[in-house]
């Protein structure tokens, strides 16, 4: 009986599993193989290169610049996205009439096409006629700045956009975390005089640590993989100030056709993401330990 059931279990996961093997795992293995060769997409020839692509990649200034850009982007967009998502989650957790409407509205960007959103945000950032500059103009302030054309602001403009596009899923996670906090804790806290801000710091935040951890890890990973907004809005410019690793790898493979080198760079990105995640796990472990001891 049990065996029969497990056979059905295998059957049920088979399509998803086959898809994973065929379209995720197999290409990853193939890309690893490719990363050990000197190749060019338009030529059938390839030469074995060993780790040459890796040593070349990490020493290449433009790739280092891309790694730095990705790090900059993640360092800003992850904390900012986190804080905004938590704030919005707390707001939409209020028991108000029609609150589900707001929840839906805040979630909509998550199910919209990234390309369409990026196009709209290009208009938001236009000089003079863009949404932000129109508002600045109405206030009598300088409205000439082209946010996406300026070396100093382009990356932050993209990061701010990502706060809104990534809001939905993060908000839902925090909302679930908030709902999961037992009401008794607040009641007990209130008896001890912990209300309002104090209750938030001493009860809400600590109880949200596991959720926060999950949100931090997943949004860091997606921040390090960002591609669509860069492709749509800046093409890595101005002066490669928004040339993040994802976009850099894309141009290496599909504009320069250096597929071996591009694969090697993908694996450098993989190692970087794993390393960052490991550090985050380590930090969170110590956090949780301190929390349970208290």
């Amino acid at each position, binding site marked *: 009986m049990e065996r029969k059931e497990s056979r059905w279990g295998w059957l049920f996961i088979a399509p998803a599993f086959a898809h994973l093997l065929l379209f995720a795992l197999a290409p990853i293995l193939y890309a690893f193989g490719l990363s050990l060769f000197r190749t*060019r997409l*338009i030529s059938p020839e390839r030469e074995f290169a060993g780790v040459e692509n890796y040593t070349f990649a990490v020493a290449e200034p433009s790739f280092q610049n891309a790694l730095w850009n990705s790090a900059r982007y993640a360092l800003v967009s992850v904390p900012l996205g986190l804080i905004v998502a938590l704030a919005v989650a707390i707001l939409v957790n209020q028991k108000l009439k029609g609150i589900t409407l707001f929840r839906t509205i805040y979630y909509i960007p998550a199910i919209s096409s990234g390309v369409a959103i990026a196009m709209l945000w290009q208009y938001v950032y236009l000089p003079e006629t863009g949404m932000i500059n129109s508002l600045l103009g109405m206030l009598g302030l300088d409205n000439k700045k082209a946010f996406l054309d300026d070396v100093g602001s382009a990356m932050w403009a993209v990061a701010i956009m990502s706060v809104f596009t990534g809001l939905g899923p993060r908000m839902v996670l925090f909302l679930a975390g908030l709902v999961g906090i037992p009401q008794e804790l607040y009641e007990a806290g209130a008896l001890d005089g912990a209300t309002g801000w104090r209750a938030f710091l001493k009860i809400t935040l600590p109880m949200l640590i596991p959720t926060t951890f999950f949100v931090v890890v997943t949004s860091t990973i997606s921040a390090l993989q960002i591609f669509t907004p860069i492709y749509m809005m800046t093409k890595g410019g101005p002066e490669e100030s928004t040339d993040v690793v994802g976009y850099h790898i894309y141009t290496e493979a599909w504009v320069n056709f250096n597929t071996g080198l591009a694969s090697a760079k993908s694996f450098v990105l993989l190692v970087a993401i794993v390393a960052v995640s490991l550090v985050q796990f380590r930090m969170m472990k110590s956090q949780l330990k301190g929390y349970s001891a208290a």
Partner: protein
Amino acid sequence: MRRWFGLLAMALSLSACSTDPDERIVIRVANWGGADDESDFAAKQRGLYEEFEKRNPDIKVVIEGIPGPGEYVPKMILAHNSGATPDIATLDASSSALFINSGMLMDLATLIDKDQEFKLNDFYLNIVDIARRGDAIYAIPNDFTPMVMYYNKRLFDASGVSYPQNGWTFDQFRETAKKLTKKDQYGFVFANWFPGWIMWLWNNGGDVFSPDLKRASGFLDSAENVKTIEFLRTMINDDKSAPSLSQAAAAGVDLFANGQAAMTVSGHWGMVGYSAAPKGPDGKPKITLADLGVVMLPNNTGKPVTVMYESGYAITKRAKHPDAAWRFIKFMTSYESRLVLNQTGIAVDARKDVSTERGKDPLEAMFLPIIPTCRPPYGTMVEGFEMVETQAQNAMDSVLKNGRDPKAALEKAAKRIDSELAKRQVKR
């Protein structure tokens, strides 16, 4: 369980029966532009495909539209690598080196020699040469366009400025632009799209590469090119006879088509937009074809030159029915087909007879003296020239948008191009 299999088998055999019992030869044609393209040109093209099928009942044409040039090139190369190349590829000169060098295309010379009806001499030979390598010919050209200077005669008349003449100089151009600049009107509008400004470099005596196409340092960052960029910057920053890039972007419209700029650089395709220009408050279009004049770009060398962009049809080596594919190309590049397509105004025809016929139109006639000054784009010789375009555009952006020094910006771009070229991993 068995019944379920039985049903499945039945369903499969049914679906097999329901396929078209079509025994026509299928030729697959890769083309840019999506299937939902509603333009006049796309409609006329579809009409011609149908006409071809009517006249060749043994052939079925399947169009594989790939939207956007950025997707077209990688997709075709992937199709080639995986053995799924279509029979016919539409070739864009700006990326043709990749296709020709990759060995995916068939040499058409024997097909041309065999065919009594087809005459290569019907075409402009310098256009045919784009896809010629020694004796081999890899594509038959459809049409092409030089990049030219358009001017708005109505705005010139209103300011009492005489029309520009072929052979004019940078300084004459600058003065003309100044005279045409007034409130809500610019003399010229510049777009930072490298394929649209490379000929400014040539016309001031500069270039992009060393003659062996191996090195940009010493060429892209030459003193002549620095001067050219400074010249364009002066027009924007000091003369204010051209809008800044962000002012042009903020306008949200093509300033020339909107009657707010007296001159602009574009290809023949520009006319498609100008013939459908936005309407003013009086209900009349802000610019009409009757307002347009066409002139060469200014030059300081005494030898005016411009870049041309071209498209042609090629047959791939893997084509299963090269003869059917050849019949298709012959039909599409025939006098009658080209006359239909050329009327859409998108380009100058590669056929001399069609261009001469169209040259009876005074506006079209203005293109004819420019044709001998046409130079093929570097994409016909350098694989993946898009990389160079990006770097040159970045340099121009950093000068015009972020106030960098032109010489430093060009040096940086040239060095970067050299290192990217050196990186190309497998040499042919």
